[in-house]
């Protein structure tokens, strides 16, 4: 029995119809692609998209029905704005300057704190992996502070830092830095010893080994760390803005709740999702040219 029903057609038509796809692969390998196979393959793809689209439409319809009828079955939809009103507010927000100011403020915070975390985190990760004295000194602290979520630092950060802004940046930095440190550490610890030896016997100095062997070898892990770190950076930022901020997209969302502008809560949520996804995509896009060598291994 197959359990990975990746092909939506398979759910509806049953396995017998849906086996058209593997059949096509077999055919194409022997350079005998039949038109009927291609047609079935394309039809399968389109059907897949249609099903996904239908699911989204159904979701919106259920949401709308629940909220306009103010259904309450334990979960209370009385105060949940309808999809239509959210759409309306979204257009409104998209035309207002204040909304963009909030977005830009949040973007600035995330990228500033993230850039520092990326720099410091990867340097510390490399040092932890390759310099034993650094590992002896700093690894205990990494182990102690790692399990504490960045947002648990918010009260202390507000007390410690001179400005709200700096405390928010600190929280975001803290959220992003640990995945970066740990992934870099792992990547730099696992450099194949053959490569280190090869480099050394080709006359590479310690710095050259770092630059030409350790860093490239750790790059796939560093990229993972950056990608994960970016996600956590947004997560931490929003919490920090909700609790301590006077502006930013997190504050916008929270303020919408306090000012009873309920559709704007969802506008804020959607914006956060988009911003976080796009930021992570940018990171992945920036790392991609450096990782091309590892793709076809």
């Amino acid at each position, binding site marked *: 029995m197959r359990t990975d029903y990746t092909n939506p057609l398979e759910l509806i038509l049953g396995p017998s119809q849906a086996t058209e796809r593997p059949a096509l692969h077999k055919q194409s390998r022997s350079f005998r692609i039949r038109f009927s196979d291609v047609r079935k393959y394309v039809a399968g793809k389109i059907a897949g998209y249609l099903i996904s689209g239908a699911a989204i439409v159904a979701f919106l319809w259920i949401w709308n029905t629940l909220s306009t009828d103010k259904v309450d079955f334990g979960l209370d939809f009385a105060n949940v704005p309808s999809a239509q009103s959210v759409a309306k507010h979204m257009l409104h927000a998209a035309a207002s300057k204040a909304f963009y100011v909030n977005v830009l403020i949040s973007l600035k915070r995330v990228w500033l704190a993230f850039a520092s975390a990326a720099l410091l985190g990867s340097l510390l990760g490399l040092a932890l992996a390759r310099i034993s004295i650094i590992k002896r000194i700093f690894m205990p602290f990494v182990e102690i502070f790692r399990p504490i979520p960045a947002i648990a630092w918010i009260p202390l950060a507000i007390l410690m830092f001179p400005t709200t802004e700096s405390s928010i940046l600190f929280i975001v930095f803290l959220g992003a830095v640990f995945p970066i440190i740990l992934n870099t550490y792992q990547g730099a610890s696992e450099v194949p010893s053959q490569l280190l030896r*090869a480099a050394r016997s*080709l006359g590479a100095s310690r710095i050259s080994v770092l630059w030409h062997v350790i860093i*490239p070898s750790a790059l796939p892990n560093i990229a993972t760390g950056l990608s994960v770190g970016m996600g956590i950076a947004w997560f931490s930022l929003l919490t920090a803005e909700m609790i301590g901020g006077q502006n930013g997209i997190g504050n916008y969302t929270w303020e919408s709740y306090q000012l009873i502008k309920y559709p704007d809560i969802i506008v804020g949520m959607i914006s956060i999702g988009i911003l976080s996804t796009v930021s992570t995509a940018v990171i992945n896009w920036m790392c991609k040219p450096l990782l091309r060598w590892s793709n076809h291994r």
Partner: protein
Amino acid sequence: MEPQPRMISRDAKLERGNVSIRNVSLRFNVGGSSILALSHVSLEVLPGEFVCVVGPSGCGKSTLLGAVAGFMKPVEGEVLVDGEPVRGPGADRGMVFQQHALFPWKSVLANVEFGLRMAGVSGKRRKMVSMRLVEMVGLTGFEHSMPSQLSGGMQQRVGIARALANNPAVLLMDEPFGSLDALTRVKMQELLLNLWQELRTTVIFVTHDVEEAIFLADRIVMLTARPATQKGIIDISLPRPRMKEVVTSHRFNEYKGKCLEMLHAESARPIGAPSPDTLTFGVGGVAWQAPEKQASQHAASG
């Protein structure tokens, strides 16, 4: 065993690549205990000589090369290369590994250039030398390929070119063809002999394939099972240049017999001593197994 009593020319300019392994013992510390990998190994390799080191797997062949390369430090004895004691890895000793030692993020050319780059050779000259080496190992047209796009044999060609780029005094090779198929292996052996004939670099070549060793070497050094000590040395005076056809010759088979004999003696170790692993004979990698059994047969028949 004493170092080979041979005359060594001290004309360093003409003849570099003299390796003296003097009474070297080497231990690995694993957790609390330690493993003795080499025990009082001595070997004198002459400039330009091609020496094969043969021994059962796990006996300490890689460790011996590692000591010459400077990756590991002997607890006793020392290694001298052209009179200079080895204190660490250096560009005067090129290393070719069994596999997976190319920088996967660098192209073929960048891999070959690496040593020259480390030596501070200018870009233009670097490229010229590397292109020539890529040509010598028969990889013209693949300069810009990535290692992962190459077959195992081609990867080893790159490995050899990369090690030769620095013009090392000694080329250290650790079972470089061990993971290649039989045909590729023969081609690589011939390529290596051609390169060596041209460059006259000293080669220390580790293998567990006796036939490979006889085909390549001027001398074969036999090691015992761990801890490796020198079992004996066999001079191979087959004519050069050698073609693969030599393996069917009478002399070749005589050498094989000689090696076998030495290995039989090797297997007649006291009970409880570590037994040698499988040794292979022949390009097809036909396993030569159960030395105890063969030894007893030999003893019974003789």
